[in-house]
């Protein structure tokens, strides 16, 4: 049984998935280190350890994410859009639209209807942190609150305060002002989640929105953003059958398996 791996080096976290052709053997997620190569080695080592194998047992490795070219030993690199699409389709064959909101970029991917994970079209943000996980991180620091609690806080809000600035830096000042005005914290956080949703909704408008719609990436775990996005788009956003954070690494592992199979006589 050959083992392949996908390694997704993002700006916030590094993810690795080991796959045997049928099932996910192991997966790992760690915070990104300053050097992508170090992140890759650590996260692959961790996943390999969980699977009870050594990194040297990996027959084919595909790197993805912004640090993909720095993944040591990767035989191939593939963009995260292609990988997220494959990963999402593996989890849910009925995925028609995938919204991937990562640490430093957001993408909306339209997938082929037959469940193969082929990308039909996509849109992504341009050189701006608004509408990404980084925006939420900056705001969480203002509240001195762990980002994991952000979504829950937004859901508890009775209303959503408007954050009118689209720029992360200006929005941060705006949030500080609202805190100074002693506005309800949950309502401010709901406004922040809505600001992210508004930016992502703009990206959705650039592709053909087809249901079912799923979310991947770290922000998929933020219920506040998900709810605001559903409200803006008027569609239900479903949860992937597996961990949305590792969808890209999983897609990379699936591509690795394809590549390995092609190599075999």
């Amino acid at each position: 049984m050959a083992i392949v791996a996908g390694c997704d080096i993002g700006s916030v976290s590094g993810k690795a998935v080991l796959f045997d052709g049928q099932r996910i053997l192991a997966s790992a997620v760690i915070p990104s280190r300053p050097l992508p190569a170090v992140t890759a080695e650590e996260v692959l080592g961790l996943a390999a350890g969980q699977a009870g194998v050594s990194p040297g047992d990996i027959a084919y490795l595909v790197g993805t994410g912004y640090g993909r070219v720095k993944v040591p030993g990767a035989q191939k690199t593939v963009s995260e859009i292609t990988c997220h699409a494959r990963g999402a389709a593996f989890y849910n064959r009925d995925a028609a639209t995938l919204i991937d909101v990562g640490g430093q970029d957001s993408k909306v991917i339209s997938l082929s209807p037959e469940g193969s994970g082929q990308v039909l079209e996509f849109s992504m943000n341009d050189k701006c942190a608004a509408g990404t996980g980084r925006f939420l991180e900056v705001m969480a620091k203002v509240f001195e609150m762990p980002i994991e609690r952000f979504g829950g806080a937004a859901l508890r809000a009775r209303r959503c305060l408007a954050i009118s600035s689209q720029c992360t830096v200006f929005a941060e000042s705006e949030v500080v002002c609202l805190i100074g005005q002693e506005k309800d914290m949950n309502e401010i956080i709901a406004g922040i989640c809505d600001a992210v949703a508004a930016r992502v909704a703009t990206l959705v408008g650039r592709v053909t929105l087809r249901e079912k719609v799923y979310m991947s990436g770290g922000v998929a775990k933020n219920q506040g953003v998900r709810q605001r996005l559903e409200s803006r788009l008027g569609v239900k956003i479903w949860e992937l059958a597996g961990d949305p954070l590792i969808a890209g690494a999983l897609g990379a592992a699936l591509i690795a398996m394809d590549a390995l199979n092609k190599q075999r006589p």
Partner: protein
Amino acid sequence: MPNLKGFQFKTYDFSKRLDTKVDLIEVINNTVAKAFRNQPEPVRWIFEPLLQYIDELNYCREHPDKVVYRHFTFAPEMVYAMDCVSFVPEALTFIMPTEYLCALVDEGREMGMPDHWCGFLGGVLAPIMYGRLPQPKAILHCNQPCDNSVAQGTVLAESYPDTEMFILDNPYTDDEAGVQFCAEQLREGFKYLERMTGQKLDLDRFRQVMKNSARAYELIYQINEYKKAVPCPIPTSVILRTTSGAFYGLTGTGGLVQWLEKHLADAKMRYEKGIGGFRQEKLRVVWNLSWPVFDYSVYDWMEEAFGAIAVAYHSAEPFYQPPPDLDYSKASFEVLLRELALRNNNHAMGRQGRGHMMTFVDDSLKWCREFKADAGIFAGHWQCQANWAAAQLTKEKLMEELGIPMLVMVVDQLDPRVVSAEQMASRMEPFLEMVTAKKEGSVQ
């Protein structure tokens, strides 16, 4: 599949502040011109029009009485008909070393240039305002294609207060009324040039220039027919680097005709042998607005990683069509004037920068259809706001009518600090993966 890994894009050293108070034309002579002349023999011909234009810049320094500033969307034939030299200040930004361009943009900003001026316009603001360029005898300006370009007219007027300007109001429509509207203004333009240069228009010279121009359009029409072949017989570097630049600056000259004849012969030879450009063609791409100029390795990467060949460049290649069957040696001034108006209305970036948005959209469709494109890339020069308005509509139309996708991304054609070649490549990579998978009928 090869990809970003292992590909070395150009790097820049911005740590040292360059002295911008230098003779820019001399800088170009000593760097870019030298590099063009030192190209290996098989590809040196590609750079000839650029060298011809650099020769003209040098001629300007020696013959100040012949210098006419021309807005880049103004057809150059008018200047050549007056036996003058067409000096396009913005063209310097295309041929100067990138490090100088960036230093000049910084200098422009330090002297008050708004941040929203792009590298193309911003790179010459300081040289104009500090009088570092050859003084013009006349200035031909116009009201397109963007607000900043129009604002540059004010800068020119303030910098050369003793030089009256001629400003062309480009027509909105493409019908006969639009042609006549332009022709009547050009009639006044000739009177203006006669007054400013002290020279009378020589009708025979005008005829020869228009004949050269018609021949150039005839040749590019024939070359473009070859470009439709699969594989495209013309290397990307020729399509992007030279053809468009040559038409921006040299239509009406005999030098351009001679170069296009070589270009046509090369295309014909390659076509007959069934060979493509420099690398194997797998995908055909049309650049739908601008294209990055500061680092040509991005095209090498596209070709190496995906076999993605640029087959057309929408906004700078002339809107080609067979020229009229006209005996230019006997043509009257009125006939020539009308022809010139037609050329002007369809001049590179002039056509794309005026009129109804659907002209841009329809042209995109036409180019992608005729050149059998697998994909479009709308590399939106960040200051071309009018064209940005057409981005989404163009994308939808290409998908709807031709079934091909279009990538939309921001660039500054000249300033890598806005978006670097590597950043562009990382944006193009998933797109080209998608197009490849679609074309091969397989999933990545």
